[in-house]
């Protein structure tokens, strides 16, 4: 059986996998990082999005063996060691950008990459189009879009903390 060595959330892991083992299966079943979800089998819903070497990737459409040597970040690895949430997590909470929470890990991981890919600022339309690979059935996306815009301001250094949502 092929062996995979990778770093997940800063921790090195080595695991034996089958050739057919998907990265998401390695994360969920071997490493018990169940925050990353599987919502479809056509690579469309994005519930499984993690970062590989800082970029968002659908872990249901990546073989575990293909992540050999990679640096993987999952939703469990976002908050600081002291428990401080990442600006994107904080913004999702402030703007009520999640309901059932199932799409949320992938949505947050995608959103961070999306903001990183627009270092000069991101418009509402760019956010909406940039979420093409993530489905949410609960929120209607409106609050997700607002949360990402608010997090972008912090990630881009325009604000020091997440702007409060209008009451």
């Amino acid at each position: 059986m092929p062996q995979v060595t990778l770093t997940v959330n800063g921790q090195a892991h080595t695991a034996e996998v089958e050739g057919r083992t998907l990265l998401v299966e390695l994360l969920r079943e071997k490493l018990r990082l169940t925050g990353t979800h599987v919502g479809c089998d056509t690579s469309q819903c994005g519930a499984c999005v993690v970062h590989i070497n800082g970029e968002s990737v659908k872990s249901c459409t990546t073989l575990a063996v293909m992540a050999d040597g990679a640096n993987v970040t999952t939703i469990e690895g976002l908050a600081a060691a002291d428990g401080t949430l990442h600006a994107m997590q904080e913004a999702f909470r402030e703007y009520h950008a999640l309901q059932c929470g199932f799409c949320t890990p992938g949505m947050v991981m995608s959103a961070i990459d999306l903001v990183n890919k627009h270092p000069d600022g991101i418009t509402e339309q760019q956010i909406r189009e940039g979420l093409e690979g993530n489905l949410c059935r609960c929120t209607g996306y409106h609050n997700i879009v607002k949360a990402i815009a608010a997090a972008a301001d912090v990630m881009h250094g325009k604000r020091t903390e997440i702007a409060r949502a209008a009451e």
Partner: protein
Amino acid sequence: MNVAAPFEGIGASVRRKEDFRFLQGRGAYTDDFNRQGQLHAWILRSPHAHARIKGVDTAAAAKMPGVVAVYTGADMARDNLGGLPCGWQIHNKDGSPMAEPPHPVLAHEKVRHVGDPVAVAIAATREQARDAAEAIAVDYEVLQAAATMADAQKPGAPAIHDGVAGNLCYDWHIGDKAVVDAAFAGAAKVVSLDLVNNRLIPNAMEPRAALGEFDRTTGEYTLHTTSQNPHVIRLLMGANVLHIPESKLRVVAPDVGGGFGSKIYHYAEEAIVTWSAGKLGRPVKWTADRSESFMSDAHGRDHVSKAELALDANGKILGLRVHTQANMGAYLSTFAPCVPTYLYATLLAGVYTTPVIYCEVKAVFTNTVPVDAYRGAGRPEATFLLERLMDVAAQETGIDRVDLRRRNFIPTDAFPYQTPVALQYDSGNYHATLDQALVASDWAGFEARRAESEKRGKLRGIGISTYLEACGIAPSAVVGSLGARAGLYEVGTIRVHPTGSVTVLTGAHSHGQGHETTFAQLVADKLGVPIAQVDVVHGDTAKVPFGMGTYGSRSLAVGGSAMMKAMDKIIAKGKRIAAHLMEASVDDIEFERGTFRVAGTDKTKALVDISVAAYVPHNYPIEELEPGLDETAFYDPKNFTYPGGCHIAEVEIDPDTGKVSMVNFTAVDDVGRVINPMIVEGQVQGGIAQGIGQALLETCVYDANGQLLSGSMMDYTMPRADDLAPVSVATHTTLCTHNPLGVKGCGEVGAIGSPPAVINAVVDALRDYGVRSLDMPATPSKIWRIINGGRRMAAE
């Protein structure tokens, strides 16, 4: 420094307690649970819509690597398992009961839809189980399928179930046909419209999953399942299918990733894993692939209707006559029969003073996935029919569409208002929600915006829907008389612990609605306990005494009301303890947000003083009063609740491609008292997204052979962020008059009110093309066809 704690009670947009775990990947959904020695099940499903099973050979599969067992419908029959039960019984026009054919857990002798479970392979890994399932050889004799209601009702149509003539489940009606016919005979104007309410696939983001366990020591079964109502699953599966007493069966619905109705029902896979776990003595897990969800989750809607409206010369409605065919699919799902009857026909008065209504509903079996309640359930179908009909009536009478609605609104002073279709509305103000929405959407400024769009070569339209729904399901006696086989009350337990923290136990289930926050706010408001010290427990039959689950926007109106009653009991008992501690008469004790006070004095005791005394009774009147501060209450609503409001959609069409873009959406809803405005707004926004999805994007398509063409997200259009536009959501409150909170419910209004607003806007945008009827969804190719046809007509 003394900083006042932020207000967390009723009316505060408290940020959600549950978000911390969801945002850090610490949610616990069914598929996240793994047990020692766990096996995996893969269900072999029928590739045919209709076929006789002549034989199932499992020998090869049983020998595959890792395989522990392969079971078929015959194995279940040998164990005398029951079929999946239906929770409602509807009666035909002649008083006879509906046809209720058996619904085997694993298909036996026949398969009746693509995806019908035929066998299960259980192995050490999921892929091994799938390998084995593929090796099961099923000898099918393929039969002619009836994929549509029309096909199923044709003379000579294939019989889907033995003994169900014409594939008719029931032929039901409501209202006095003769009286309605007479109203039509005297009408100045009759408007009629044929409508299809498109079939939808719910697609909660979490695919269904189930994990069965059996404890050989105690003989107890445990099922973790993706359910909206674990107690009902325990009842139905234990009593009807597996014959396991409740004392030996625990059902847990942990974090559930959305439901929208599709996770209310008792599904075959729940019984399969529980039964298999018992036979094998090992935990058995099943998790659906999304492709399986498409062919095994109950679908929604699927009505074909003819509606007629009689009006007098002033545009006043004289009567409504409706004929509807409702698709049940191949089997009766748990709630299915009530959806096109008591959740649909009883809503046909809407917000209007229609004096007489007649509706007949034929429910038809087809070789398709079972159809059941999906967000709104019956009420979106009724609303779409009424609000499309109102627009056509406006067009054909020449009366302005807003004015026509106003002329027929139930007056604000007419409540309680008895409709001709069984319901009595308790409160509402339809003029107020309409007025507010007209202003918020700048209805008056629309023509200028239309002209601006036209300059850019785009067609702009605006549409309105003034709607009402009935939820807070349900008054037990009422639904019992309508065919429900159980009452639909709710239970709430408030457990104040010795040091003053509170556990709330509720039979409602949260799968995105934010109950852990909203219910905690009720406790904060009433008992004065900070929400950080309030934990809401739901979804576990071993912890919560009983419950009916969450659907029909009932959790707060029914479940929250039960909690309020339980808190009343806590306060009453607390007053007696306080009276003892402060040596006062119980009649002199007042309670307000956490403090018991002897009236007119400065003598007080905090709730924590009372709770510690209640549990650690060294100074306690134990002879007169039982220790503990833990109260349970049941609440059975006196009536449904009646949220309503006005939705206004604005769209822009690209005539070159036919693509409809949402440019604006305004909702003003009356959901009764609002506990957490942030959560209510989120619920309404989500419902509207599903309504827009139905109107513009989503539809389930079968071919003539019953093959599901929209069988994956590659072909079933799920709304994405760029399909939707910002939504303006506001509320206008009239209180529910019959529950202690004054709440009405907000979970479904978005999906109910929005589809006709969107379609009315599309029709308005196409006003130059003479569009009268337009079936959902308004896809680009459909709109292009209309525009293209219109141009051709103009040219000829």
